[in-house]
């Protein structure tokens, strides 16, 4: 049986088709989820994709986290469903309290789109088992508010528990504390990151196919479960 991975579309979501394509490339079925329906349509995992939900005018992810679909997402997360938030999706998961901390304006104040090297720091989450510990992967980063911040004790907790999943390698592109690019919840099921693995699934349209590992990892996790 193929795994079913849901991809949420909010008004202003941009990378939903790309996330769905990545899910298909990895061999699972992509199911589109509409923000206004409080219904996960029987999916086994959920991706909250990138974009500018509601224009991100107030604060990235601030309005989207109240969408009807987020109710069941929060419930499912509590039960351990694998959930991946990419870029705006990461911001939404933080706003919704599924992940700690927040994302603020890039230190250079402008949007940055670049091919970014990441170091994989945790290979035990639902979304990172396909990588080798310490591996460097090349994934596009494209965001204006990608600076990860959290209170010092939250940060210490994340580091202490090994919950930083991806870290920027080389120069810090946006001023994130501790070069954090992606983190996970305490159980390793919910992962959020600023860079876009769904844009790195094929060297024809991305800088590499290094991003595919995240989707393959989730499928592995679902098959095992």
């Amino acid at each position: 049986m193929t795994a079913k991975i849901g991809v949420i579309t909010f008004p202003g979501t941009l990378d939903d088709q790309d996330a769905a394509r990545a899910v298909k490339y990895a061999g699972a079925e992509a199911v589109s989820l509409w923000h206004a329906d409080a219904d996960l349509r029987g999916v086994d995992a959920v991706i909250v994709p990138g974009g500018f939900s509601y224009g991100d005018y107030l604060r990235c992810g601030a309005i989207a986290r109240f969408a009807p679909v987020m109710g069941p997402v929060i419930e499912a997360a509590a039960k351990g469903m694998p959930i991946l938030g990419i870029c705006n999706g990461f911001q939404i998961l933080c706003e919704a309290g599924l992940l700690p901390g927040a994302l603020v304006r890039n230190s250079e104040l402008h949007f940055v789109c670049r091919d970014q090297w990441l170091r994989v720091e945790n290979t035990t989450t639902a979304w990172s088992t396909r990588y080798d510990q310490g591996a460097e992967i090349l994934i596009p980063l494209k965001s204006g508010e990608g600076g990860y911040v959290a209170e010092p004790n939250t940060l210490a907790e994340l580091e202490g528990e090994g919950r930083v999943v991806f870290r920027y390698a080389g120069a810090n592109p946006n001023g994130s504390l501790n070069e954090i690019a992606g983190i996970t919840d305490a159980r390793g099921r919910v992962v959020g990151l600023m860079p876009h693995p769904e844009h790195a699934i094929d060297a024809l349209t991305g800088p590499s196919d290094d991003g595919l590992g995240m989707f393959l990892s989730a499928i592995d996790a679902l098959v095992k479960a």
Partner: protein
Amino acid sequence: MTANKTHNTDSVKHAESTPDVPQPYTELGLKDDEYQRIREILGRRPTDAELAMYSVMWSEHCSYKSSKVHLSYFGKTTTEQMRSKMLAGIGENAGVVDIGDGWAVTFKVESHNHPSYVEPYQGAATGVGGIVRDIMAMGARPLAVMDSLRFGPADAPDTRRVLPGVVAGVGGYGNCLGLPNIGGEVVFDPTYLGNPLVNALCVGAMRVEDLHLAHASGTGNKIILFGARTGLDGIGGVSVLASDTFSGDETSAGRKKLPSVQVGDPFMEKVLIECCLELFREGIVVGIQDLGGAGLSCATSELASAGDGGMHVVLDRVPLRAKGMTPAEILSSESQERMCAVVKPSDVDAFMRVCAKWDVTATEIGEVTDTGRLVITWHDEVVVDVPPRTVAHEGPVYNRPVQRPADQDSLQRPVDLPRPSTSDLRDLVLRMAGSHNLSSRNWVTDQYDRYVRGGTVLSQPSDSGMIRIDEESGRGVALSVDCNGRYCKLDPYTGAQLALAEAYRNVAVSGATPVAVTNCLNFGSPEDPGVMWQFEQAVRGLADGCVELGIPVTGGNVSFYNQTGSTAILPTPVVGVLGVIDDVRRRIPTGIGAEAGETLLLLGTTSDEFGGSEWAHVVHGSLSGLPPRVDLKHEMLLADILRAGSRDGMISAAHDLAEGGLAQAIVEACLIGQTGARIFLAEDQDPFVQLFSESTGRVIVAVPRTEELRFTDMLTARSMPWRKLGVVDPESKALEIQDVATFGLEELSNAWQGTLPALFH
């Protein structure tokens, strides 16, 4: 004394009874004879609302009154064969081209120069928003954008104000819309200091059968306005009428000072795109039109004149954002993110349901009639009653005086500029690579999302942008926009052809077949006979060039009055060329080193051509002589060879030579590929000329060693001049130009990459 003193609303009835009331038509930009013509058309004086409509629609921007007589040359020169792939052409919102497999592609460039000077961020942002709606109005899904930008000197204080704002605006809007930015230009020249150019291009695709042309046909069909509410933005000159209306009122002074700035809402536009596409899929749109310049005046008069010729609009129904707006203001507001559709009465409910799903405000504001008149009512009084064609299409046409500038001859006289000796060339290569116009544009392009939608195959810093249209077959398109204003200043006819040749070559270099052309003609004041001469020459050059290449101009845009005081900008006819590739996997990248063991070849001929060159500009600040010669037959052969090479897998990388010549091209090919190379110059020609001449029709090609013989045999057989340039050297991390200099890639990279960040950090 004004028309409104005694009446709240200047209705048609009121106008008839007060024929002699003076009207502020001069303030609205109308000439005496233009105002007289309006009176003749109507058989009475126009109402305030009619006057507002005619004045905006008869403006240079909307009516093309100075350019029309020249632009008709495009139509006259387009042959049946050139037209064969064109599904819509000049006159539609955007040109549409059949690219095969049932796909139609639409693309267009538009200028937003003046607004971007006043308010760089919003000016540029709304420029992107406007061109995207043009593409939507054809029934297409917008797929990518490009931006062609020109500023004053890079180190001028005002450029520090304008450039970062423009770039942030292009990015802010396009990124939020989810359209990848796949290319453009950034050019610096003193003539753009008080008048930057912001030209935005959008490309979209649809199935051929889904093409929607803007027309309001079918008597009884409903007119639906949807998207943002209408506010007081962009009203500009028409506020003259408002301040009259409100005289005695405290608000009148405020009204007069209304900024003609519009603020964009890209989120609204994104939702509008998805909403429109769903409406198209449901098949419930008879006609559609975007609201751009001249707002509702334009949309209603154009829709009506393209359809059955009549329309009745109830202006009270237009959802407003501001209080106390007058009919004239509502009709001329340029509020962004609005569209207008013609819908069958039986489909209105379905239409409204789709809009509600996307949370888009939609309002039925009127219907199609068979009266042949555009009638607009306000509080049950008729405020507009006009033949729509007279507003939309029968504006004034000027045959402005054309005169070759007196100093053109002296400009074209070559000046002998001191040339460097071979020992100076090392420094020159670095200096040129880091010069304002040649340095890396990454500081700009890194602010643009090039990945969204997952179909971008080539983008900056490639010669052209390329996107996949069909995921199954891999069919895609390539696009490039180009213009060298200095070449155009020296010789506008040749300059326009050089822009065409460069865009054409850029598309060909990526492995695609050029098929169609769009343009954005940025010039100074049409009231200056010298500028009109430049314009006429450029149009002829471009049109004649297209005939030679056998590809049509499918649309374009004219922007006049680009000048500071009496000094016009360099004539800048930006040319966009669209190419088709049947499988994007065959694309040719720009950077070398993709395959182990590549030979470098130089295709084309190098002559001593430095008129208008980047070298003359950077080193001597000089502009004189004649631009490089252009040979379009040669460009066609080159394109054909590149296509064949790509099809047969003989080419692993290619980069065309443009500003800065061979030196710049090889530096870029190495840096983009992060790979070293060893090249040698010909013995029978001056090294400086070989490295920096800007002779056209030249391309550096990297071929896998295994293909070298097969490829060079083809070159020889097809009489393409070529010479072996050297080899790719992946081990060395250096560029060696034999007997001239060796450069570490890092040294080159620092020179090339460092310039813009240092200026705009």
